[in-house]
C-alpha cells in the first residue's frame, strides 16, 4: 500500500516536473518569435511593400508620365552603359582599399585608446568620434582647401619636403586618393567606437595571465584581441562593405564624380539617374544590381568567417 502511494507520489511529481519543463520548453520555443515580433511587424509594414514596388519598377520604363512594362530592358541597358561600369569599377577600388584599412585602423585605435595607463581617455575617444559628426559642409571645405593644387596645405607640405605637388582633385588617381583619405578620415572613428564596445567584452584576466607569461603587445593583439572580437570585426567589415558600396557623399560633394567620372560611385550614379535624369525604372534596376553585388559579397564574408560565431 504504502509502496504504491509512494510510487504514485513520485509519478505525479515527475509528471508535474515534466509539465513545468514542457512549459519552459514552450516558452523557450516561442521566445525568439516574441523577441522578433516588433521588428517583424515594422518590417512587414514599412519594408515589404516598398521593396516589391521598387523591384517591379526596375522592369518598367517611365516615359511621358506613364510606367510601361519593358521586361529586362533596364538591366540590358545597364550592361551596355559605360558610366555604370566605370562607377562600379571606382566603387570596387574604394572597397578594396577601404575595408582592410578601416578594419585594421579602427581596431588598432580602439586598442590604443583602451590601454589601461592612458590619461584623458574620454578626450581621445571624443576626438576620434568627432569626424563622423562634423558637418559635411565643413568637411568639404576643409578637404578642398587641403587638396587644392595651387594653394592647398597638402601640396605646401609636399613641396616643403622636396616633393612635387600633386594635382589632387583634377587627376584620376589624385582625386581617387583624396576620396579614400576622406572616407578613412570620416568613418574610422565611428568604427573605432564599435570596436571599443567589442573590446570591452574581453575578460581582463586573459591579458593579465598573458602578461605573466611575458607576451608582447603584438602577441596579445594577435592571440587574444583579434580572436575575441572576431564577431565585431565581421560586423565592421560587412557594414563597411555595405557603406562603401553605397557611398554617395564623398563622390557627390568632394569631387562631384569628376574628372571624367574617375571618382563617381554607383551610389552617386544611381542618384543622378533617379533624381537628375528622371530615369526611375533604370535607377531601380541599378539599385537591385547593387543589392545582388552587396548580397553576394556579404554572404561570402559571412560564410568565410562563419558569421563571427566562435563555436
Amino acid at each position: 500500500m504504502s509502496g504504491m502511494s509512494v510510487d504514485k507520489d513520485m509519478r505525479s511529481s515527475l509528471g508535474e516536473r515534466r509539465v513545468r519543463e514542457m512549459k519552459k520548453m514552450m516558452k523557450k520555443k516561442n521566445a525568439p518569435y516574441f523577441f522578433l515580433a516588433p521588428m517583424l511587424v515594422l518590417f512587414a509594414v514599412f519594408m515589404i511593400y516598398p521593396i516589391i514596388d521598387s523591384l517591379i519598377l526596375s522592369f518598367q520604363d517611365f516615359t511621358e508620365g506613364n510606367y510601361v512594362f519593358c521586361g529586362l530592358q533596364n538591366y540590358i541597358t545597364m550592361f551596355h552603359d559605360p558610366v555604370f561600369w566605370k562607377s562600379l569599377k571606382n566603387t570596387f577600388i574604394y572597397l578594396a582599399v577601404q575595408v582592410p584599412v578601416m578594419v585594421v585602423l579602427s581596431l588598432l585605435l580602439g586598442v590604443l585608446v583602451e590601454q589601461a595607463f592612458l590619461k584623458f581617455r574620454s578626450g581621445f575617444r571624443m576626438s576620434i568620434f568627432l569626424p563622423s559628426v562634423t558637418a559635411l559642409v565643413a568637411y568639404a571645405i576643409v578637404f578642398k582647401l587641403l587638396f587644392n593644387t595651387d594653394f592647398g596645405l597638402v601640396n605646401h607640405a609636399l613641396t616643403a619636403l622636396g616633393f612635387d605637388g600633386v594635382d589632387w582633385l583634377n587627376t584620376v588617381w589624385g582625386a581617387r586618393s583624396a576620396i579614400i583619405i576622406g572616407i578613412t578620415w570620416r568613418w574610422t572613428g565611428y568604427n573605432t567606437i564599435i570596436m571599443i564596445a567589442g573590446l570591452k567584452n574581453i575578460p581582463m584576466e586573459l591579458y593579465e595571465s598573458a602578461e605573466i607569461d611575458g607576451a608582447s603587445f603584438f602577441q596579445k593583439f594577435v592571440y587574444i584581441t583579434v580572436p575575441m572580437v572576431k564577431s565585431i570585426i565581421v560586423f565592421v567589415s560587412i557594414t563597411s562593405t555595405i557603406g562603401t558600396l553605397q557611398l554617395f557623399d564623398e563622390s557627390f560633394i568632394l569631387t562631384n564624380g569628376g574628372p571624367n567620372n574617375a571618382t563617381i560611385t554607383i551610389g552617386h550614379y544611381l542618384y543622378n539617374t533617379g533624381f537628375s535624369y528622371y530615369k526611375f525604372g533604370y535607377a531601380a534596376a541599378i539599385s537591385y544590381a547593387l543589392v545582388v553585388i552587396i548580397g553576394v559579397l556579404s554572404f561570402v564574408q559571412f560564410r568565410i568567417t562563419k558569421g563571427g560565431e566562435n563555436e
Partner: protein
Amino acid sequence: MKRNLLSIILAAAVTVSLCACNGNGGSSEKKENGDGGLSGEITVWSWDVALAHLEEQAEKFRELHPDVEFNFEEMGVDQVYQKMTTCLQSGIGLPDIVSLEGEQMAKFGTKFPGKFAEFTDMINTDDFFPIKVAECTVDGKVIAYPWDSGPCGMFYRSDLFEKAGVKAEDIVTWDDFIEAGKTIKDKTGSDILCMAESRNDLVYRLMLMELGGFYFDEEGNPQVNSEESVRAMEMCKKMFDEGITFNNSSWDDMIAGMSADKFACIPEAVWMVGSIKDAVPDQEGKWAVMPLPRFDADQEPLGASNGGSALAVPSASENVEAAQEFVKFCMEDVDANIEGFQNYGLYPSYLPALESEAFEEGDEFFGGQKIFELFTEAGKNAPQVNYTENFAEALEMSKNSVAKILLEDEDVAEVLDAEQKEMEAKFK
C-alpha cells in the same frame, strides 16, 4: 529602469500621436468667394532670394485679393528637385507654385506631360527674352513663366588688364583673347580664364551657343559632333594648350582663386555680378565687363545664356487659377521686376522692365561702368536652344568630354563622335 523605459515610450507615443494631427495643411475648399474674386491657400516652394522676392510680392497681391492665403516653404535648389521628384511620381503633396531652373523645364514638361498648368493663353511671349520662352515651352505649350535670366558676358579684372597693358576694346575674337591671355600671364602671372576644365563645360557650351549650336537640334536629337561643336571644342583646347587657364575643381575653389588673383576673367551670366560682390568685396572698382569674344571678327555673334529660373504651377493644385494669376502678377509687373533686380539681383526676362532706367545706371563696383545694356543685348540675341528632357545627362557627358580632350589630351573629333554615339544610345 524598466518602468522608466516604459514611461518614455508611452510619452513618446503620446507625443507622436498628438503631432499626427499636424498633418497636411490642406488647401481650402472654395475657389471663389461671393464677389467672384480669387481665393484659396497657395503653397509656394522656392529658394533663397527668389522666395524672399515672392513673399514681398504676395503682400501686394493680397491687397488686391485679400482672400488668397500664402504659405511659403523655403528650400535649397537641390531640395526643391528632390521633393518634386517624389511628389510628381506619386502625384501627391505638390505645391501650388514652384520655382525651377529654366534649363530643367523641358525635362519636367516632357517626363510629366499635363502635370503643369498651361500659360499659353496668358503670356505675351514677345515681351520676354526668346531663349527664356523657349525654355518654358514644351510641345508648343507654355508651361511656366520665365523669371530671371542668365545672359552671359565676360567679367574681367580691369586692374590686371591695365597692369599687363591689355585693352579690353582690342579683344574681339577668341584668338585676340588668347593673345591677351599670353601677355597677362607674362606680365602678371595670372591666368586669363577660369575654365574648370576638369569639372565644367561652360566655356565650350557658351562658345557653342555663340555659333548657333547646342547639344541638341530643334527636334531634340543629339548633335555634339557637329561642325560648330568641333570648332568650339578646338578653341577650348587651343586656349588650354597655351597654359593660360585656371582649373578650378568647384565653385568654392573659383571663389578662392578669385580672391588670390589667380585669374583675370570669368565668362558667366549676369547673376555673377552679385556673387563677385559678395565674394571679394575688397576688389571693388577692379572689375569690368565686356561681351564674350566671338569666333569671326566680321560676324555678328549670337548671345549665350546660362542659368535663370522659371515659375510653374502644378496642375494638381486646387487653386490653379489663383496661383496662375499670382505668377502673372509677379512676372509681368515692371515694378516687381525692378524690385527683384535691385533688392535681390534677379535679372528680368521681361523686356518692358529691362527698358527702365534702373538698368541704365552705372555700377560703382564695376568702376561705374553701365554693365547691363550689354547683358540685355546678349539676352535678346541668345539662340532659342532646345534643352530637351535629357539636358542634365547630356551636360554630364559633355563635362566628361571636356576633361578627356583637355586633361587626357584625346582627339577632339574622336571624343565628340563617341559622345554622340553614347547620347544616341541613351536618348532613344
